[in-house]
């Protein structure tokens, strides 16, 4: 064995000797402070905590303004959930017309996005040749990068005329929830396809082989083994898609309609696929874009809508988590 002093005299030093010299240059084996590490750790903690505080902050603003709204004496919770119209000018605050429009556009978007997204995912994960997949997946993901305002005009200038051409000018209004919903489905499709494809690709090959080894066709293997094994991931993809549809603003603001529908009573207009209706998000963006005086009841009412929307997506996320844990088929 060579000592450090010998190492210095050797012309071609081996790294082993170098390492030994380095180690011996340190005098103790006791802990030494590492300030750099502490700083980085604190910064990472800050990053993690930031989103929690942001959420709490948003919740605080939504909650306090919504409290002002409910504390104004002009509306109570019962009326909020049952009144047939949302007309701040007439001091009528029924959230349900807005909620119904959100549900309608979401429903239409899912009619498009779930079957097509899942179909695309199955094709990409199970049938496409590697080369086809390498071309197709990025193109699909480009759809996700198109600004939503572009989709909005696509709905207005392509989907609406198309629907009117098929179902007739008198049946389909210029602004209608079906058009906005269908285009929203196209927007969400890549998200669902991409997430579902990941879930399917994560299912081990060995399970497919087991199925083929028992004499299943490809379709049987997919339907009976791969889809059930990837189900939790697929459902998570659906829920993320639904959450995006509920929160989507630009498309519905442009194409679904610029006034809340009427839930029941004379001239009830909600739940009509080809009729105009304003969603929660659409209403918020239209009203807050106008000249709205600060602290008026109209202004506060927007926060009540926002809080409803927040609770909506929160519940969807919770359901998603529950489903993911509950239905996870643990495979090795």
């Amino acid at each position: 064995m060579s000592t450090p002093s010998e190492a210095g005299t050797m012309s071609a030093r081996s790294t082993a000797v170098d390492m030994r010299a380095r180690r011996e240059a340190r005098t103790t084996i006791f802990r030494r402070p590492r300030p750099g590490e502490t700083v980085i750790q604190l910064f990472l903690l800050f990053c993690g905590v930031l989103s929690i505080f942001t959420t709490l902050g948003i919740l605080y603003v939504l909650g306090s303004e919504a409290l002002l709204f409910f504390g104004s004496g002009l509306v109570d919770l019962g009326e909020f959930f049952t009144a047939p119209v949302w007309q701040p000018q007439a001091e009528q605050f029924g959230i349900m017309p807005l909620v119904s429009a959100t549900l309608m556009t979401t429903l239409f978007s899912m009619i498009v996005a779930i079957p097509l997204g899942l179909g695309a995912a199955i094709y990409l994960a199970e049938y496409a040749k590697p080369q086809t997949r390498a071309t197709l997946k990025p193109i699909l993901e480009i759809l996700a990068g198109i600004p939503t305002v572009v989709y909005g005009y696509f709905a207005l200038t392509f989907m609406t005329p198309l629907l009117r051409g098929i179902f007739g000018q008198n049946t389909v209004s210029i602004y209608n929830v079906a058009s906005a919903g269908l285009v929203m489905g196209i927007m969400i499709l890549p998200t669902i396809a991409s997430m579902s494809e990941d879930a399917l690709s994560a299912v081990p090959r060995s399970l497919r082989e087991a199925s083929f080894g028992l004499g299943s066709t490809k379709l049987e293997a997919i339907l009976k083994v791969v889809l059930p094994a990837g189900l939790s991931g697929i459902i998570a993809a659906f829920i993320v898609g639904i959450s995006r549809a509920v929160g989507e603003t630009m498309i519905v603001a442009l194409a679904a309609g610029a006034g809340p529908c009427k839930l029941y009573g004379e001239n009830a207009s909600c739940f009509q696929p080809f009729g105009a209706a304003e969603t929660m998000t659409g209403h918020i963006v239209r009203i807050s874009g106008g000249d709205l005086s600060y602290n008026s009841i109209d202004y506060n009412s927007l926060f009540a809508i926002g809080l409803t929307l927040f609770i909506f997506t929160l519940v969807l996320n919770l359901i998603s988590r529950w489903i993911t844990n509950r239905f996870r088929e643990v495979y090795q």
Partner: protein
Amino acid sequence: MTENGAHAFELQGVNIYYGSKMAVNDVNLMIPRQKITAFIGPSGCGKSTVLRSLNRMNDLIPGARVQGGVFFGGQDLYAENVDPVEVRRRIGMVFQKPNPFPKSIYDNVAYGPRLLGVRGKAVLDEIVERSLKGAFLWDEVRGDLKKSGLALSGGQQQRLCIARTIAVEPEVILMDEPASALDPIATQAIEELMKVLVQQFTIVIVTHNMQQAQRVSDYTAFYSIRKKEEQGGVENRWGILAEYAPTERLFTNPASEETERYIRGEFG
């Protein structure tokens, strides 16, 4: 082509390629019915590749190609009009790593029969019980058929996979190193099971374990590797069938020196 019924498989001049690369060259082999035939040889000698060509499992690997004749009961398995799905219903497979479906024990075993259109609880119950008994697993799981197949131990999982395979009553069971992921006790259970199963099924097993081949098999095929230096220093390697004989003779009196060196453990 054999029609005498003594042979399950006959391989004539089989070459297998992955893309443009040759994996196995010129395999000629007759695999007898209701016997255990073991494939042994060093890693990369193509023994699993040949095994997977016997039920067209290679079809699932992009670029895999089989040349020559693979005859099963006189029928060329790679003929244009042969449906690989039907082939695999007759020639089942057990894999190296136990791969039960993430379903209940019952559903694992009932999977194959259900594919074949078997319905009705009573019939399925009976098949599940018979298959689990056939795989020596029934006594351990009878009270808990609803439990996930993945909750079982490794050895039990592999026996579940065997039960799942015999549930569809194939003619042949191919086993690709079925005990290599198992401990010695579980391995012994699988070996015992094979000796019983061979009364009903033709078994072909790939194994790394020469003692295992010696213990269980009637015939042994020893595969080896051939190499060739290509231009630019690239080395091409492919597998060949080096020797095929009754197990006892192959291990006691091998014909080639290469086989002898392998079974003495000098390479591998």
